[in-house]
């Protein structure tokens, strides 16, 4: 049984555009993704494709003007607002993107201690710092005093000490030098090997491939493909969705082929396939209704013509 199961999740923002005119922004539509124990799932997609919103929806920390539909299940049980509140930081932990997510006026050691759920806070914090090769002076530092690599490890520490079974890391790698990047990736992989379920949100397909078991490709707020990591190889001939193939082909080492056009804005989504306006294989049917996510060759795809 998957430990985390997101099914047909939609997130809509109500906005008052001008005066009393209400405008709905559908930032996530019919998104489905599952996370198994011991597995690292990478979520990739362009900016604005809803990756962070998915993380925030799982943790129940969306802004007040957001409305959600669909279901999120943890260990087979639907997450209600109340249940999420009790799981946050205990069973499900977030590794945020940057040092800006730490309280600027609180020493980092103390911040890690507040995340401890089992055992003596100070002890647990020292243990995890030692594991991540953070010197003991670091616990007395304020966030602004940390180098990029140290900040990364402190943020990881907060998730580690929580003892959570599901770790959601939102873009934990940008701005890291190659060595720190390598270390951060290995840390996440290690969590997976220890039995946690890790969701790695990233722009960086290369890094994702190094540690992920599965890759979920997001486009305009929905999952277009879920594929085993090994399918990202060669010319992308094993990939299922035209967007995944295009994304793969756009990487420097694969020809640097740009994808023409742009992702539709979440306030004006087309009725049919969300990728249709940029898809070479698009036919009349593609414009009529959004294709369903279907099983294909040990993965999933949201495309009527995929083989």
């Amino acid at each position, binding site marked *: 049984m998957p430990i985390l199961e997101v099914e047909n999740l939609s997130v809509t923002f109500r906005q008052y555009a001008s005066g009393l005119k209400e405008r709905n922004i559908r930032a996530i539509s019919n998104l489905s993704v599952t996370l198994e124990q011991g597995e690292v799932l990478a979520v990739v997609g362009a900016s604005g494709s809803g990756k962070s919103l998915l993380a925030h929806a799982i943790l129940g920390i969306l802004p007040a003007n957001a409305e959600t539909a669909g279901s999120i299940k943890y260990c087979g049980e639907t997450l209600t607002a109340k249940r999420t509140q009790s799981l946050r*930081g205990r069973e499900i932990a977030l590794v945020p993107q940057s040092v800006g997510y730490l309280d600027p006026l*609180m020493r980092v050691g103390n911040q890690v201690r507040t995340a401890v759920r089992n055992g003596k806070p100070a002890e647990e914090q020292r243990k995890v710092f030692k594991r991540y090769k953070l010197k003991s002076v670091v616990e007395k530092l304020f966030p602004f*005093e940390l180098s990029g690599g140290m900040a990364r490890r402190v943020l990881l520490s907060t998730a580690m000490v929580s003892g959570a079974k599901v770790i959601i890391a939102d873009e934990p790698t940008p701005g890291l030098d190659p060595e720190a990047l390598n270390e951060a990736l290995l840390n996440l992989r290690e969590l997976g090997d220890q039995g946690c379920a890790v969701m790695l949100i990233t722009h960086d397909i290369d890094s994702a491939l190094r540690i992920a078991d599965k890759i979920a490709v997001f486009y305009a707020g929905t999952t277009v493909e879920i594929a085993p990591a090994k399918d990202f190889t060669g010319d992308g001939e094993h990939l299922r969705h035209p967007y995944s193939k295009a994304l793969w082909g756009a990487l420097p080492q694969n020809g640097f082929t740009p994808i023409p056009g742009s992702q539709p804005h979440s306030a004006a989504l087309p009725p049919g396939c969300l990728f249709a306006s940029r898809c070479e294989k698009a036919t009349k049917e593609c414009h009529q209704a959004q294709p369903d996510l279907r099983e294909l060759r040990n993965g999933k795809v949201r495309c009527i013509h995929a083989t």
Partner: protein
Amino acid sequence: MARAKNLGRFLLWRSIRAFTLLAGISIISFLLVKNSPIDPIQAYIGADMLNVGPEQREKIAQHWGLDDPVFKQYVNWASSLLGGDLGTSMIYREPVAEVIKEKFSHSIVLMLTAWVLSGVIGFTMGVVAAMNKDTAIDRIIKWYCYTLASTPAFWMGLLMVMVFAVWLGWFPVGLGVPAGILSDDVTFIDKVKHLVLPAITLSIVGVANIALHTRQKMIDVLASDYILFARARGERGFILFWRHGLRNVALPAISLQFAAFSELFGGAVLTEQVFSYPGLGQATVEAGLRGDVPLLLGLVLFSALFVFTGNLIADLIYYVVDPRTREGRTYES
């Protein structure tokens, strides 16, 4: 240590600025007073004017050097000022320093009470409003603050006197102590009773600024990434506020309170007038109305110094308390 050196330079620089500021203020106010239609001799003699002949006037003028050129008068005054002598008040017939000391001892009680009250109440209002943004409670607090921000202190004072002193009779109408009682017989309770209305008046007007400022700051903090992350770790409600909100909002609020010394002083002048409270404010008004030049100048300098000190503390708080300026170290690991 680099930091102590920086702090030393900061303080030295500030002292130089304070000195030039005071020198400038003293020249301007001296010129203003000298060119105003106040007749210092008449102010000195008061109602006995008719009994004083021109000869005696001449003698007084000579005694005070009133016939010297203005520049010379200023130099005389300024040099004795540097020697610590502020001159003698004409209406109180006491050294100006003594008068200021005695009046300030009353005012400081009033101002300090109002300062603490308005700080604590305003801060709480701001936090409550921000944590309940866009609810009825937030709207009420905001409305209250905007209304207050446009209410003059003396008007609020009059209202308080009318309601609580005249109609309800809970507190005395004015003065610092009961009238017609020997000063030895004045009890602590008496003093407190006379303090309540002016202090409340002064703080009611003072909360608006700090409340609105704190509200905005708190809203920013609540929308920050570190609060989002704290919530993702399961923190909420009071714990969330206590751990992350308070820490980040208190510093700017306290600093703002110190920077508001000028409003506090200005408010005290009006409030003391309404309540006939025998403090610095009242002395300032009297010195102005009755042409007590030395006292007026002394008060101007004193209030400038007072406001300056507030601003200095406001800056120092950031300098000394905020770790981002306090501990300038970075570690590589």
